[in-house]
């Protein structure tokens, strides 16, 4: 991966260009690198986000490289993410990266794409969704299955409604716990597979969500006959250095930050600790 700074541990001081509130615990931060530098990331990669004086957290990039600047969707869960939630337009953050492999968007060209996103798993997948939309003619059938815990937990509500009305995507949504505002489907995400027509040999399934989701979704994909190497999962681990050294993100012999976070099912099938 091209490094944006010469020393792997020195972050590039960057500027928050805008902040969008998504839910009470999630915001999108648009970040601009200095001196017109471009991140040139691949969809599915992540950066190490530094809040100066507090620390770093690995955050997946939720925008497409075809977008202006880059976007990070951040849930407030710890010190760093709480600190950035208190930051505003114009504030400075540090960026290292981008890290990891990302989704094989070139290899997927000409193929059908089935996105399966649970909860905040939609954030890293948004990068590839926006990339495909920006290059729509190069991909076949495009389906998104999206599940959230409750209607108010749904991220990117504006975009979801745009996608839902678009002829370019078939978006199917569900929530685990519906309320009075929700007239759509309810139930766990695997219930969206019912009646879904898939041409398995030409379909890439891209999966990201809470750890518990993967096994069930992969079983559904396999049940549809999608080849193991075309079932792609993006895994969450405690990426610390991003350089395949510090050990925190290691799954068996594999470093998620370098060899992942995107793995095909045939790569992780025999990694005992992966799923």
């Amino acid at each position, binding site marked *: 991966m091209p490094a944006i700074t010469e*020393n*792997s*541990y*020195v*972050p590039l*001081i960057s500027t928050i260009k805008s902040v969008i509130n998504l839910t009470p615990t999630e915001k999108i931060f648009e970040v601009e690198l200095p001196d017109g530098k471009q991140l040139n990331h691949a969809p599915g990669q992540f950066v190490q986000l*530094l809040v*100066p*004086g*507090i*620390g*770093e*957290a690995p955050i997946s990039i939720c925008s497409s490289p075809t977008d202006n600047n880059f976007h990070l969707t951040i*849930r407030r*869960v*710890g010190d760093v*993410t709480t600190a950035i939630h208190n930051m505003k337009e114009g504030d*400075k953050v*540090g960026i290292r990266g981008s890290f990891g492999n990302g989704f094989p968007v070139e290899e997927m060209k000409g193929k059908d794409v089935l996105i399966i996103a649970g909860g905040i798993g939609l954030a890293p997948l948004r990068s590839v969704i926006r990339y495909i939309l920006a290059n729509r003619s190069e991909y076949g059938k495009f389906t998104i299955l999206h599940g959230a815990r409750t209607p108010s937990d749904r991220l990117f509500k504006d975009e979801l409604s745009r996608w839902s009305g678009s002829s370019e995507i078939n978006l199917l949504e569900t929530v685990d716990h519906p309320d009075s505002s929700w007239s759509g489907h309810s139930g766990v995400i695997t219930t969206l597979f019912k009646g879904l027509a898939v041409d398995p040999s030409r379909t890439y399934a891209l999966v990201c969500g809470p*750890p518990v989701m993967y096994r069930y979704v992969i079983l559904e994909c396999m049940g549809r006959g999608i080849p193991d190497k075309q079932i792609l999962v993006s895994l*969450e*681990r*405690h990426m*610390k*250095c991003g*350089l*395949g*050294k*510090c*050990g*925190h993100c*290691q*799954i*068996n*012999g594999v470093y998620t930050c*370098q060899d992942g976070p995107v793995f095909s099912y045939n790569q992780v099938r025999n990694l*005992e*600790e992966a799923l």
Partner: protein
Amino acid sequence: MKQFIFQKSRLKELISYLISAYPSVYAPVPKGKHFVFDKVTDPSIVEFQYVRTILPPKKYLMPPHEPLVNFTLKEDPEFKEDVCTDSQVIVGVRPGDIRAIKLLDDVMMNRNKDKNYIARRENTVIIGIDGIPDEYSYEDSVMDLKVEDGFDIFMTDLGNMILVDVATEEGMKIIDSIEHHPATDIYLTLRENTLNSQREMFTARIDIQAKLLPLALEGKWDHPIWAEMGEKCLSCGQCILVCPTCYCFNVTDDMALSMEEGTRTRHWDGCQLADFTLVGHGDNFRDNAAARIRHRFHRKFKYHLDVFSEIFCTGCGRCWETCPSDINLVEIANALSSEEVE
């Protein structure tokens, strides 16, 4: 490689020269009942008759708490790398620790080069010395006691005489500081004899060739040994902190009291500590001691072997000696391989 001999009584002279010629000289010195590598300014406190030090000399190449970046947060935040290029000598390094440094070199100096490690390593002179094992040592099961590289000078204690292998120009400069003579064949034979008698002194042994352990591990993911060791393990992390080949770390950003400047620091960390794989929202991917011990064993004998073609254990016995629960990799290796030995 050139071989010379010098009289053992000249060792002090050699260390005095090092102290005069290099800003920092680190050597084994006694500490209570144990030994440690420490900075020496007085050659008389150096003690080469030791089995192992509490911490390996790794601490001079990758310090336990190492500044990586200094930053100021006044108007515009500014981050500057902190790379240490001071020259140093580590003298009295055992073959296993030399091998461990070579393994760290493989990790840190190739893919995604670590600038801080490389700067320290390239400014470090290593002078090794042979040694004898105790009941916790099992070097002989995982490596060749005769190290061929990874040092500037390697000394073999032949009684009244020291045989030295000089591998670098820097090493030659150091040996030239004391009276020495070319080593005749008899000394090389004596060295072989010394090595052979050292090999016979090991009481702890891995029953199969260590490089075959990946085969012994096949189908053993749920072997009862992991749960058995997990029951005993306190997850204190001492084993990984004393290990010469462990290099996992954490990075923290710490502010000075002024709240205007701070340091990004790398700290030793490790896979046996309970929160090592914890992620932000509470999932912990190795949340029990059995899984963590299994991971450590696989790292030493399989995962890294697959990537670096080397076992990441030197048999130094530090983890075993320090473990409050007497957990040791030899016992685990033998439990796994007992069903495999043909």
